[in-house]
């Protein structure tokens, strides 16, 4: 038995419930896709698609729970012992005051995975709300045409001092999308930290960076805009993703599904197939 194998056993057992991708991320992603792809457009076909995706997500969440229990068994996660938490906070600990990170790592994974994204999201939200959006975004979401027909966005630099209530409806929606990227990105980043910054979990880091990057790009869009009315090519390519709320929801949904599939793959790879009894 190699040390690496033992490490993998320890990791999978510790995060067994969180790695059940078809139980959490994939259904959530399907719901996000159904909301993002259909809510903002009045079309009967979209309504059917939305209903199918919603129903599929609920059925998947329920059946996945049964599937994981039947296929891989059950694990009751470790609860953080209160005595341990007090010890990490106490300066009277026999080993002396423990470093902050050490104490932080001794928290239960659940507490850590909630605290990190919440803290990061609060900071990002504050930053995004205080940054002045110096662009006016004008979108066409007339609800009677297919989504792809609304992808073009017109931008205009804002003249004069910006005041809070002066933002257009489209700018507000774009900011909601950016906030969504920031929240999901920080959540993914928090999961990567909470799972011990392992190489095998680097897809959470990658997805987190992409989503946080999109949030930052949307916030600083004005810096990439040229006053002559031209925009850089990269800006043109990424513009729909940071200005349309529905595209942001689709992106987030796709990221959730990808994370869920990779989580499940990790679980299935380590737990493999049960060994068969050899007949003598």
């Amino acid at each position, binding site marked *: *038995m190699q040390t690496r194998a033992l490490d993998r056993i320890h990791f999978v*057992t510790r995060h*067994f419930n969180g790695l059940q991708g078809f139980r959490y991320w994939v259904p959530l992603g399907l719901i996000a896709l159904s909301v993002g792809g259909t809510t903002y457009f009045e079309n009967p076909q979209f309504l059917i698609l939305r209903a199918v995706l919603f129903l599929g997500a609920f059925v998947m969440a329920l059946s996945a729970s049964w599937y994981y229990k039947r296929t891989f068994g059950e694990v009751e*996660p470790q609860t953080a012992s209160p005595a341990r938490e007090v010890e990490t906070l106490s300066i009277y600990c026999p080993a002396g005051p423990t470093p902050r990170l050490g104490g932080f790592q001794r928290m239960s994974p659940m507490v850590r995975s909630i605290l990190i994204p919440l803290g990061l999201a609060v900071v990002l939200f504050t930053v995004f709300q205080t940054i002045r959006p110096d662009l006016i975004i004008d979108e066409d979401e007339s609800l009677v045409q297919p989504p792809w027909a609304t992808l073009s966005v017109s931008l205009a630099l804002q003249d004069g001092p910006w005041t809070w209530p002066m933002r257009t409806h489209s700018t507000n929606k774009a900011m909601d999308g950016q906030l969504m990227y920031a929240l999901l990105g920080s959540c993914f980043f928090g999961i990567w930290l909470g799972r011990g910054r392992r190489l095998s979990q680097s897809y959470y880091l990658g997805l987190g960076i992409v989503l946080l990057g999109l949030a930052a790009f949307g916030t600083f869009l004005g810096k990439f805009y040229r006053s002559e009315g031209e925009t850089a090519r990269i800006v043109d390519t990424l513009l729909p993703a940071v200005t349309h709320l529905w595209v942001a929801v689709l992106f987030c949904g796709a990221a959730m599904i990808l994370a869920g599939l990779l989580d499940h793959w990790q679980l299935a790879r380590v737990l493999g197939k049960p060994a068969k009894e050899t007949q003598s």
Partner: protein
Amino acid sequence: MSTTPFEQLASLDRLVHDPARLAILTALSACERADFLFLLRITGLTKGNLSSHLSKLEEADLVVIEKRFVEKKTQTLVRLSDAGRQTLEGYWKEMAELRESASRWRPQNAALVPAPG
């Protein structure tokens, strides 16, 4: 008196040092308790082997085995006992010491070591 790495290796707890039992104990140390099916999947052992190893660990009071009925079927839940947790921690401490002493160890009389060829 200092001991050689070989003496340390010989004094390791055989009950824990066995790869299959070490895998079981490692899995149990990362959770509150796990059921038989999960241990089967994570260790890659057969049912018979897993049962046998669990019995040995239970006899040594390293694990606690509980049985309960779920949907008219028996579910076996296994958890690490306090003694088991201490034993495992002690084992890893010993392994760390062994690694340390093995990296420092040099043959006392190098001239007696036959040259290759």
